[in-house]
């Protein structure tokens, strides 16, 4: 069965590129365009992995991450942060909340993001 990835990201252009790219690699991508929807979908769809942006409408990424960890249904889902924010404090805070990786969008290629996802799902 195809692994499910929840992509919480407000940029529809990125939703499209990632949807296309990860779809070709045999993943099922569920998209959420804001924090609240992301949180709801995480509980309803039980994805195998969450790709999370930090600057989001309705609820900020760090807040989403906190809520995910508080909910017993979602607390064990691996989360990879994919963002444009290069901020040491945010990095520390999200690491404390147990993320698997912090990827800065401008510094990573799709291929590298894919490798990270594959690496996480194998474990």
């Amino acid at each position, binding site marked *: 069965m195809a692994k499910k990835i929840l992509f919480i990201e407000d*940029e529809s*252009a*990125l939703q499209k*590129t*990632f949807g*296309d*790219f990860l779809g*070709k690699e045999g993943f099922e991508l569920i998209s959420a365009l804001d924090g609240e929807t992301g949180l709801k979908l995480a509980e309803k769809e039980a994805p195998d992995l969450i790709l999370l942006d930090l600057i989001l409408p309705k609820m900020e990424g760090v807040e989403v991450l906190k809520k995910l960890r508080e909910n017993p249904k979602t607390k064990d889902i691996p989360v990879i942060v994919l963002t*444009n*924010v*290069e901020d*040491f404090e945010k990095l520390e805070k999200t690491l404390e909340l147990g993320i698997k990786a912090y990827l800065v*969008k*401008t510094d990573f*290629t*799709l*291929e590298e993001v894919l490798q990270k996802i594959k690496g996480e799902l194998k474990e």
Partner: protein
Amino acid sequence: MLFKECKKYHLPLYWCPSFIFFILGLIIIFSILASYFIANKIISNPLIVALICIFLACFLLILSYFVTKTFEALAESNRIKSEFISIASHQLRTPISNLKFTLEILMSGKKGKIEPEQVEYFRILKENTIRLKELTADLLLVSKIESGEFKLQKEKFDIRELTENLVRNFIPFAKAHNVEIKCYFEENLPKIFGDKEKIKQVIETLLDNAIKYSKKGKSLVEIKICKKPKEIYFEIKDEGIGIPQKDQKHVFEKFFRASNVSKGDIAGTGLGLFIAKSIVERSGGKINLKSEEGKGTTISFTLPVS
């Protein structure tokens, strides 16, 4: 907090306007008292002297208050500028990363084959996306340097290994410019205790400049690393176009580009050397430049050893 500017602008206490103002006030009060007692001994009516003193002191205090206010307004405008750069470059990164990912998909050929005559145009697109990305990264770094948020990590590392790896990455770029890179490393160099990534960026900038500004035809870039008491000395020498004498004292200023390149077609932002200098100096080292127009440039820097 009384000296809140110190925190806001990351200034030491003695640079803080309200602290200077406070000291000034103390000095004035003390001088009034002193002049009153001195006048008391010499003149029959010391009260007039004291009144004149008080009047002068009030005038001085008001004046100095406005002077400090002006400086504060200046500092504030500088801070707003840095903040603006920081926000702008964060915002810019979103479309840049969208561009980058989209290009990656298109260039991978997964969305249809690219025609041979399109390849060059895709290459230009990609190159310019990378340039945009680097420019915003540099702008962000500059705003961090200016707002005092810039922090260096500390770790032990081998500068020779770092340089050798970098030189290896630069070989294709050097070949394209018909430049040969020669390295001279002293044996048993001690380890450096500093921010490896940032020092890497410094060497990258210097190497990039040395190759980019080489003259047409075959030319040579020499890198030398040796040890000096308590520090490491790094030198990079090129046979490039050089920097005109009148521009040399400005090359480490931000957005400055020498007059012989600013009109030319060599891409650059004028931020590289400003960032390099900031990194070297904050790491406890010094950076130096020697250049002769038409002959070449030598840039050297030192770094403290662990």
